[in-house]
């Protein structure tokens, strides 16, 4: 059975083409216009890729609706071509949901329901069942036994390296599925939301787009244009997270943001993280 399966897979001939190029939807239209002045960036990282080639992506622009290719940009394979581990992504998303979730469902116990201090009827002689309080859980309007109590926290810290790998895995999956784009900057010619909508429609980016910039203050036009549309969001690099990357269809990084993300993640992938790997203590934050 297994050998048959293996031979079937061998026949399938999954061709492995290292994804050096990432094409966008309308390559032919754009490549001719700026073929002469393409800037090709070869990067010299502190941590050179060992066994895999760097990924190359086009640098795009936002100042025209039509896509223009401004150059080629290299991305580090440790960050942008990590093994696509769906389970790590899922653990990160679960962690992000749980870290802030507190259940406020609440019931009152028999001690907290008002009244019920007096014995409702004598212990003996009435032919009735014996009871000591009208707020016992047996009574209508009484307290709840073993009910939910407010302030049930689900907090836990995901191990440090699972969080680092959550980011690399998600970035790699986004790049592999053509959902990650690199732009020169976030400068728009106008603050018209229609322009941004048209651009996203034309380039076949999903309806929801997450734009990430290196700085805290994004350009005015992009903020004004995306302000009315909830599904287009701008975030600084330090705000980037697995959940938002998955919630938005397309992730758009500026050049400087991509470099910053790469720098931070490469640092943590190679740094001594004994301190970060210690069990979480509230006093440490």
């Amino acid at each position, binding site marked *: 059975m297994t050998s048959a399966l293996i031979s079937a897979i061998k026949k399938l001939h999954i061709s492995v083409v290292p994804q050096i190029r990432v094409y966008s939807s309308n390559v032919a239209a754009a490549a001719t216009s700026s073929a002469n002045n393409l800037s090709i960036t070869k990067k010299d990282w502190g941590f050179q890729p060992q066994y895999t080639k760097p990924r190359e992506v086009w640098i795009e622009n936002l100042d025209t609706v039509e896509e223009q290719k401004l150059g080629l940009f290299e991305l580090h394979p440790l960050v942008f071509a990590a093994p696509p581990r769906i389970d790590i992504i899922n653990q990160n998303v679960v962690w992000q949901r749980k870290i802030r979730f507190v259940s406020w469902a609440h019931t009152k116990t028999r001690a907290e329901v008002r009244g019920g201090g007096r014995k409702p009827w004598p212990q003996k002689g009435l032919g009735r069942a014996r009871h000591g309080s009208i707020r016992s859980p047996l009574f209508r309007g009484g307290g709840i036994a073993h009910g939910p109590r407010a302030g049930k926290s689900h907090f836990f810290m995901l191990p440090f390296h699972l969080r680092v790998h959550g980011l690399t895995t998600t970035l790699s999956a986004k790049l592999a*599925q053509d959902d990650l784009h690199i732009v020169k900057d976030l400068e728009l010619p106008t603050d018209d939301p229609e322009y941004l909508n048209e651009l996203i429609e034309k380039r076949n980016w999903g309806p929801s787009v997450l734009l990430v910039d290196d700085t805290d203050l994004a350009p005015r036009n992009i903020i004004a244009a995306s302000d009315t549309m909830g599904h287009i969001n701008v975030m600084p690099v330090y705000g980037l997270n697995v959940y938002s990357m998955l919630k938005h269809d397309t992730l758009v990084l500026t050049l400087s943001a991509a470099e910053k993300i790469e720098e931070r993640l490469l640092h943590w992938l190679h740094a001594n993280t004994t301190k970060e790997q210690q069990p979480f203590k509230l006093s440490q934050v």
Partner: protein
Amino acid sequence: MGSRQITEKSLSMLRSLPRISLGNIRNNPKSRQNPKRGRGQHGGDKHGAGNKGSGQRQNYMRLGYETGNNPFYLRVPQEHYYRGHHLRREYPPLSLHQLQSIIDKDRLDITKPIDIASIIKSGLYNFFPDQKQFGVQLTDEGADFFAAKINIEVQWASEQVIAAIEKNGGVITTAYYDPHSLMLLKNPKKFFESGQAIPRRMIPPPDAIEYYTSAKTRGYLADPEEISKERLKLAQKYGYTLPNIENEPNYNMLNERKDPRQIFYGLEPGWVINLKEKCILKPKDLELLKFYST
């Protein structure tokens, strides 16, 4: 990975699969096992609580209770070996062997005077001032092969340790720090970020004054003349020739000491360290100057 290129294969497969989103991710199958409660004919009989007795009824006896016997912890008479131990000063040890190893790993700069702050900064020694630990005690393990020439300030040192360091042409001082000063020395960055002025170091408590004013223990309050005499005496006692440190090229470094009121090398009490603008604010008010100079 390697020749099988699993990452490349899976990434290229991912290209033709639907977009990964919040709706289609899952953990590995069977990665989480929920705790189960036994069911069936005998599965849930006792729920692990055993048969009869306090295990089942969960009314446990208090710890040490022996069902009416005179319990063991009362049967044995008390012997007060450790009476008042919680009030005494503790000096957690650091052996010369460990110190040599820290120096060999180049995690301690011996071209500058060494104090407890630099030992902590090496990352290979730790202590807790809030647990009545009053600094580092240098012990003589590894005294035979200790070979570094250093100017070190510790809080407690034995005679052998002093001899081992002075034999190599080094200098040792024992100095007292109050717990608050030790907190500062343990994590200077945290203190500087708080924006407070560096306080004065407190003088030793009465029972420690003798140790820290004695030239034999190289106390920081001892007379320097006495100390040089004691250095010579110790060399004669242990039978080595005392290297002449006056002719050393780094004589200035070896001769550097902290003021008895000073906590950090190079920083005086009353100064405020501004880490953000990278500058030092010094008091000018006469009253403050007078306060910090005493």
